[in-house]
């Protein structure tokens, strides 16, 4: 059973976690990977040898970290991601709940939704560029699509699979329809909303990078593509890794928000 003492920050446990065998192995794995990569590059192993070695990537990275243009790429990508993602939540969560809870709405709206959904967001790029006044808006729109469908689908699934026991119990205890919606259906659907957000965030990064390569003059995707065009190979690697780190940070942020939203699912 969980004890009541776990409220404060447990430094001993944290230290144990940081200096554990698993951490050590993880670091070792990364170091071995980097050394192998360096060796492959030095000895010109076919194919892999064409990749710039870690040493030159690190040197380039050192310069880039002090470069304002590099950080502007981060900023531009993040603005696109967050705008598209947040708009997707603002529109997607209510729509998902509506479709999940209301059968009439579901029967009216869902067929159209099902026709649009299988179209990959990137296939929208040309038409988006045509009908949105600026490229910036069209990229945000495509990013939005990436998260939107995932969020809506997850919420519909979540809302429709609410255990009938909870609804029965809630009605028995004297709930109004409003109580049922706000106190039962919404919280019962929250875990699905969080899943939708997590998956959606992953998709938005995939989408924004590709969209930037096609239709933009800025951002991490553009940075990577531009380096390829300019033949600056270490910079390609930096672009790739930056996208990886940015994606990881956004996922971590969503996980943090998600666990705040669903405290009952945390394992203690």
């Amino acid at each position, binding site marked *: *059973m*969980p004890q*009541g003492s776990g409220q404060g920050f447990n430094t001993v446990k944290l230290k144990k976690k940081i200096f554990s065998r698993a951490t050590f192995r993880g670091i070792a794995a990364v170091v071995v990977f980097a050394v192998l990569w360096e060796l492959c590059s030095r000895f010109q192993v076919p194919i892999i040898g064409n990749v710039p070695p870690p040493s030159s990537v690190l040197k380039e990275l050192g310069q880039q970290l002090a470069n304002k243009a590099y950080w502007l790429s981060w900023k531009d990508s993040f603005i696109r991601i967050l705008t598209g993602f947040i708009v997707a939540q603002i529109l997607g969560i209510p729509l998902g709940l509506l479709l999940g809870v209301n059968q009439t709405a579901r029967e009216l709206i869902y067929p159209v939704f099902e026709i649009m959904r299988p179209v990959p967001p990137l296939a929208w790029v040309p038409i988006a560029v045509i009908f949105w006044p600026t490229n910036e808006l069209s990229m945000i729109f495509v990013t939005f699509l990436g998260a939107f469908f995932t969020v809506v689908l997850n919420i519909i699934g979540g809302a429709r699979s609410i255990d009938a*026991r*909870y609804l*029965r*119990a*809630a*009605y*028995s*205890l*004297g*709930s*109004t329809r409003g*109580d049922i919606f706000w*106190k*039962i259906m919404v*919280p*019962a659907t*929250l875990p699905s909303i969080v899943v939708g957000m997590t998956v959606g965030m992953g998709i938005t990064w995939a989408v924004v990078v590709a969209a930037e390569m096609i239709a933009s003059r800025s951002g991490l995707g553009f940075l990577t593509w531009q380096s390829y065009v300019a033949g600056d190979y270490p910079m390609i690697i930096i672009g790739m890794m930056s996208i990886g780190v940015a994606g990881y940070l956004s996922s971590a942020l969503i996980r943090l928000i998600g666990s705040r939203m*669903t*405290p*009952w*699912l945390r394992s*203690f």
Partner: protein
Amino acid sequence: MTAVQPALASLASQMVVDGVSKGFGLGILHQQVLHDCSFGLERGKLSVMIGPSGCGKTTLINLLAGYESPDSGQILLDGKPISGQGPDRLVVFQETALFPWMTTFENVSYGPRVQRKLSRQVYEEETMKLLELVGLKDFKDKYPSQLSGGMQRRAELVRAMINQPKIMLMDEPFRGLDAMTRALMQEYYVRLFEQHRGTNLFVTTELEEALFLADRLLILTNRPAHVKKVIEVGLPRPREFSMLTSREYQVCKQEALELLHEEAIKSFAAGVVNAADFLEAYSRMGNDQAVPAPKGKDTPEPGNRELSS
């Protein structure tokens, strides 16, 4: 109209089930679960309903709670037919139905919170009082997933009780708990009942549990089920586990066993699917600890006697 009181319901009955039938499925798939089922729940009494698993007890509970309506017959509460579900008849289910996203405190205070009849201060005080009564005060801010099975049952018990329902419907609430926890829960429950004296219907398959709790024991037949007999259990209150060796207990137990055995044999002969279940449950009852098997009836060997009948 309702000129004649049903035979098995007395005038003291707060809730009356009168000739209720219920079936499920269409055509050849139709299964009659309840047939012409009549009984009464006496005000302030703890009635325990016992019958084999699958005989229709849960269906009966669903009807009483108003989740479903009978095909024929009527259900009266305080003389008026019930309509739908409501906080005057609350069910404690077999599986926990605590809301996982609410803490114990929020779960227990949910009823008064949505009914909006009491002020916040009043119902919060009442919630704390009840939580303390069932030993959950220190767990008020925990979520259901952080509670043990027994704690969840207790939380669910007080979540229903706080609404002071006219009828408490307990649908095998302690099923699946280990023997120790179960005994503890029976004690908690019987104490709560003895303090509040609401009208309770408790459904179980365990005869010993039934006799320990009951003022009145309703024995159900197999499908299609109706109440076969009502046994008045004359054990004094407050109930103690030591009473399980008293003479009164033995007499009640023997009578109940004989009735249940009759049902078992009948349904076994009729090839009812769950008859094997019934016989197994019955043989367990006959063998339980410390209590000698009833006189004149050896432990039943499933179906070695009156099978041909």
